[in-house]
């Protein structure tokens, strides 16, 4: 390890038995190379590698975020379209209901009117029929009274040979 050529400043070390990490003669060389390599790596990380990796991560994140934003926009649009569809469906349904109701109302009116007309006609027919029946009954009654008087006159004449006046006969049969 510590060859005589290694350093001019420190004492020589035995080849075996020393503890190399504490061999101060190697320290200047170690520190020199550490500074060079660390500074080099730091510069590369600071100026090249860091910004590059950061750029990739940032662009991926923004791509993902914009994709998510686009997707949520599309979903909002789809939801709006569905809401519009449902609104128009509800409108159409209520219009159809109103129309059906209106139709039913007008039909009911017509039916009621037709029924009322029919009822009135039937009542008129019934009244006419009643009047006819009454007239017939009256004339029949009158006919029955005359027939009973005539019959009484004829019966009396046959039995007694007397002629009774029609007034007497009529009184007798209670007419």
């Amino acid at each position: 390890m510590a060859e005589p050529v290694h350093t001019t400043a420190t004492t020589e070390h035995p080849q075996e038995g020393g503890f190399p990490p504490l061999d101060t003669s190697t320290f200047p060389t170690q520190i020199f190379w550490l500074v060079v390599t660390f500074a080099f790596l730091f510069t590369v990380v600071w100026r090249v590698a860091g910004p590059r990796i950061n750029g990739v991560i940032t662009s991926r994140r923004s791509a993902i975020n914009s994709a998510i934003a686009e997707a949520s926009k599309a979903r909002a649009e789809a939801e709006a379209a569905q809401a519009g569809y449902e609104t128009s469906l509800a409108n159409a349904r209520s219009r159809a209901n109103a129309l059906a109701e209106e139709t039913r109302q007008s039909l009911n009116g017509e039916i009621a009117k037709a029924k009322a007309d029919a009822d009135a006609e039937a009542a008129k027919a019934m009244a006419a029929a009643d009047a006819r029946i009454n007239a017939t009954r009256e004339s029949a009654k009158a006919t029955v009274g005359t027939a009973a008087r005539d019959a009484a006159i004829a019966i009396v004449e046959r039995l007694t040979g007397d002629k009774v006046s029609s007034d007497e006969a009529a009184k007798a049969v209670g007419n």
Partner: protein
Amino acid sequence: MAMNPMEQFAIKPLVEAPLFQIGGHAIHFTNQAAMMVLVAVVASVFLSLAAKPGRLVPTRGQSLAEVSYEFVANMIHSTTGPSGLKFFPFVFTLFIFVVCCNFFGMVPGTFTVTSQIAVTFALSSLVMLVVIVTGFMKHGIGFLKLFVPHAPVYLLPLLIPIEFISFMTRPISLAVRLFANMLAGHTMLGVFAGFVVSLGAAGGVLSLLSIGPMLLIVAIMLLELLVAFLQAYVFAILTCIYLNEALHLHDQH
């Protein structure tokens, strides 16, 4: 013993002659320097090329880069809040550097950079430097309130020195935790590897027994892979916690 388990931590120049001198110290190109260069280059190339702008569906490599990026970003965000994110390049570099050094060091025959106290202490000192500079830039002299906890006044003469000492020992604990974990794990692996070689060389029944330490090496290796990640995570999250204190003192973020 045929092998010294400490030998794996020896820093050896790969080129005999020093590259140059800085303030009288010779700078060599060593096995450790090669590992650090490898880590820095591999991590830089991977992190720079893995993420291709516009590729929204990641490849395996890009996933790894993105996951580590977001792991560290979330770590900073959850400990310091949004205001700590300006330290992202620093914390991310620390985490990547430590985790790569730890994992590359797990490959047998390589050198574990983070098993050197000089490296870990330099890193923890850098963290403390950033914390102190941030604290004074944000709060001015008021940053010293960090050492004054919310407590009854008569306790403060006791608490302020304690807070001060605990702050000053942070770079040491941060450095030693990483260093000792990596050193201990690799030493253990070295010791058991030494057993395998010794038993194998002994011949006869003893050679068959060498399967025991071999299996143990496999088990410890798995444990060390966990430790390699965990210590990098601990290093990074403690950095975040210290930065949070510098940004917000004792307040919550």
